[in-house]
């Protein structure tokens, strides 16, 4: 096999030092991809340990304290070290400048700094894990988090630092999209992935500082006894929940909006159609970014919040669901009269649409307020957010990985194997999480190291599904690693896609474009021009 195009960004300096000091958005994107994949593996191993412990009631492989630390670390790792940076920092960095015809992002050095901030924050968090790890859950609810004796502080500080990496990345994308679009590329011609990253960046910049503040307050409470959340000193433990969810509900959209962007691209590319309703997708992206800030109280219906407050938050949450429904209809409409290629990214796309729909509808059910009183803090909620986080975001992440693998590394992967792995992943996902919905209906609360025996059969089913998932991920890791070196050379546009990122070579040269492309139309306008595609 001959190496990919000689002058690609991959061959522009082959030393480790050339990677560690690079300002190239593509290399930074690849570094984030490697880092987030590593933490996906770590968080996944935690999840597997949890599922094994839950095979039987009573002790299976670990005690209560170990279990409590394990689910905390699973949550912290997956949310802050994988989910939040995965698509924006890895694929966003790589693709946004390519999609808008720019040479790089607006602040390349700041972009490199965001990698190091992430590494620093992740190291501090890892150190906390070696110190024994926090046992508070990723939500750090006070007064438990301020009184427990475990290593909460390093985890708080680690997440605080990672927050800055997120903010810097968000600022960078906002500045890039505003200032570096190629001539003629107007806002309503932007690829939908760019819109999704833009909406995400707004949330990142506005919400993450609140997380930093609230984590700092918890740290202060632990170190100097500030008393802000301590009822014994005039503090209010529920204040923490309000502040935390003011960040963490929009953070759900930080995790899911980019994946919607991926799907908008993939569904057009693999059905060779323009988006069925470009403007509805754009406006609903911005709508989610805005309304997402006014829904946090739906995490607190059982907490003693006022009845009116719960009603208002419930109604706002339904609005967010409308925006999501609009997108699903638009993706479905895009398939209509298309030329649908059954490739692995499309399989993930279909899985994504179904899981997002189903998980989202359960979210609507929670917003009716009365149904929430049964489901709140049970496995139903666990299943619901795993439908959104794994069923939607991880499916989109895998879809993105497969769709843009040739773009990033210039190689193809074995297509049939990839299709089978995608089907296995979807099947494993359903087997893992559908039983958890039923467990929630039965009334199994979350964060239980031990459970009454009548819940066992569904737990066994869920663990069986988790092992299928693990097996699927193993296959994907194996063939992608193999393809990096031995995959067929992809050529510039193996999918025949009219996404703007494919207008540069694959893998792209360091400066992205030799000639700045022209943008007479928006992306994915297959009906108007011939698109070159490989045989």
């Amino acid at each position, binding site marked *: 096999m001959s190496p990919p195009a000689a002058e690609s960004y991959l061959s522009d300096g082959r030393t480790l030092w050339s990677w560690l000091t690079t300002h190239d958005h593509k290399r930074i994107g690849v570094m984030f991809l490697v880092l987030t994949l590593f933490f996906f593996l770590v968080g996944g191993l935690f999840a597997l340990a949890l599922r094994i412990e839950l095979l039987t009631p009573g002790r299976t492989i670990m005690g*209560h*304290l170990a279990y409590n630390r394990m689910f905390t670390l699973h949550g912290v790792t997956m949310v802050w070290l994988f989910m939040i940076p995965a698509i924006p920092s890895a694929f966003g960095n790589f693709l946004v400048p390519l999609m808008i015809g720019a040479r790089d992002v607006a602040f390349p050095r700041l972009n490199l700094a965001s990698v190091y901030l992430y590494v620093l924050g992740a190291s501090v968090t890892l150190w906390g894990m070696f110190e024994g790890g926090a*046992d*508070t*859950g990723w939500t750090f*609810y006070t*007064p*438990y988090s301020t*009184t427990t004796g475990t290593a909460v502080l390093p985890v708080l500080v680690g997440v605080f630092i990672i927050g800055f990496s997120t903010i810097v990345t968000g600022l960078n994308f906002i500045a890039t999209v505003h200032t570096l679009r190629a001539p003629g590329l107007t806002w309503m011609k932007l690829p939908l992935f760019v819109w999704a990253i833009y909406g995400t960046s707004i949330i990142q910049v506005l919400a993450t500082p609140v997380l930093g503040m609230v984590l700092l307050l918890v740290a202060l409470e632990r170190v100097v006894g500030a008393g802000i959340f301590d*009822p*014994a000193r*005039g503090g209010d433990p529920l204040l923490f929940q309000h502040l935390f969810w003011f960040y963490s509900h929009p953070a759900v959209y930080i995790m899911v909006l980019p994946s919607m962007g991926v799907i908008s691209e993939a569904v057009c590319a693999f*059905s*060779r159609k*323009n988006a069925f*309703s470009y403007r509805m997708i754009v406006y609903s992206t911005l709508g989610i970014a805005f309304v997402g800030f006014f829904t946090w109280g739906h995490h607190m219906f*059982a*907490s*003693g919040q006022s*009845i009116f407050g719960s009603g208002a938050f*419930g109604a706002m949450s*339904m609005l967010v*669901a*409308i925006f999501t429904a*609009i997108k699903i209809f*638009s993706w*479905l*409409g895009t398939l209509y009269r*298309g*030329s*649908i290629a*059954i490739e692995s990214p499309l399989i993930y796309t279909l899985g994504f649409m*179904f899981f997002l*729909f*189903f998980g989202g509808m359960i979210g*609507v*059910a929670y*917003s*009716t*307020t*009365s*149904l929430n009183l*049964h489901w709140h*803090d*049970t496995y139903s909620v666990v299943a619901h957010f795993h439908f959104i986080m794994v069923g939607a975001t991880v499916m989109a992440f895998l879809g993105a990985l497969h769709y843009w693998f040739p773009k990033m590394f210039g190689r193809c992967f074995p297509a049939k194997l990839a299709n089978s792995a995608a089907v296995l992943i979807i099947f494993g996902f359903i087997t893992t999480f559908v039983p958890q919905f*039923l467990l929630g209906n*039965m009334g199994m*609360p*979350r*964060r*239980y190291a*031990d*459970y*009454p025996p009548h819940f066992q059969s569904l737990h066994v089913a869920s663990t069986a599904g988790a092992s299928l998932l693990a097996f699927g991920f193993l296959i994907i890791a194996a063939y992608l690693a193999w393809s990096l070196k031995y995959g067929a050379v992809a050529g510039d546009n193996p999918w*025949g896609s009219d996404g703007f990122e494919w207008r540069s070579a694959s893998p792209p040269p360091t400066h992205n474009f030799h000639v700045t492309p022209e943008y007479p139309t928006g992306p994915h*306008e*297959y*009906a108007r021009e011939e698109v070159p*595609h490989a*045989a």
Partner: protein
Amino acid sequence: MNELLRRLFFLPEQGSTFAVKVDHLHYFLLLTTLAVAVGIGTVGIVFLVRYHRRTASDATPRVVAPTWMEGLFIGVPLSLFLLWFVLGFQQFVWVMSPPQDALDVYVTGKQWMWKFTYPGGPSAIDTLVVPAGRPVRLLITSRDVIHSFYVPDFRMKRDAVPSRYTDLWFEAPKPGRHLVLCAEYCGLDHSQMRAEVVVLSPADFESWRDAQRRNLPVAALPGANTPETMAVRGERIATAQGCLQCHTVTGAPHIGPTWLGLYGRKEPLEGGGAVLADEAYLTESMMDPLAKVVAGYAPVMPGYHGRLSAEDSGALVEFIKSLRPLRPGVTAAEEPVYVPTGR
């Protein structure tokens, strides 16, 4: 049909009047969701089969959603969601507003057990005994971290928050036993923090309670004929803590508002507005007295955070509730009368 769907969706027994109501909404919502999911899946599969790529150079037309279709995509789900919200929120308001004739029980969560105290005695750990066919209102608080009192059979949970009271009511139609779980993560043995609701027939409940009251250890002591009720204990604490130096129980205003008839009264506030003096407000005024000062009084009361235990503040609330102005012709009830806040 109800029984079939309940089993199909793995829902537990319907142990309360609310459970029956909310399950019907659940069926409606889930069946609609499944129907739409099947619809979307079918459309997806039809498109997949009908429009799958035949040659590498298939031509595709440019199709853009007409505005009316965009409106339809927004309008249909929106009206469906609003319908669900209206149905659900009606139930929510209903279940959040305890009825007038409820039996009160105080619930205290503590790592990792539940304590139940009846205003007239007795108290019990991990077993809550209630009569069937009568609404029961639980006044829930915590002694340490946040817990959540959850009865799957009642489809109901409420958080137990330190230094606050939340309430939850239910009516169990028939005798039975129901598992209580803690739903808010509270540390090491969170998963072991279980209790049980035992529903007895009204007659069995009365005889159980009488037996309990007679058999309390304090009743066996010489000179003690009745166990100390929460209200009696509250009076003792009010004296010991100096509450009565500023608050009278006679109806006369002093440095602070009188406690006579305070419970259930709408109090005008300093700086405008008014507040209903319920358990939540009374507790807040002990813990953070300057948050809502009654109009006409100076903000001079010290806070009692950390100085009153959860049991003590509950007892004080019961004492205040027992201080009702007696009107001619009205005989004092055996138990404090709860003044409704909702229905």
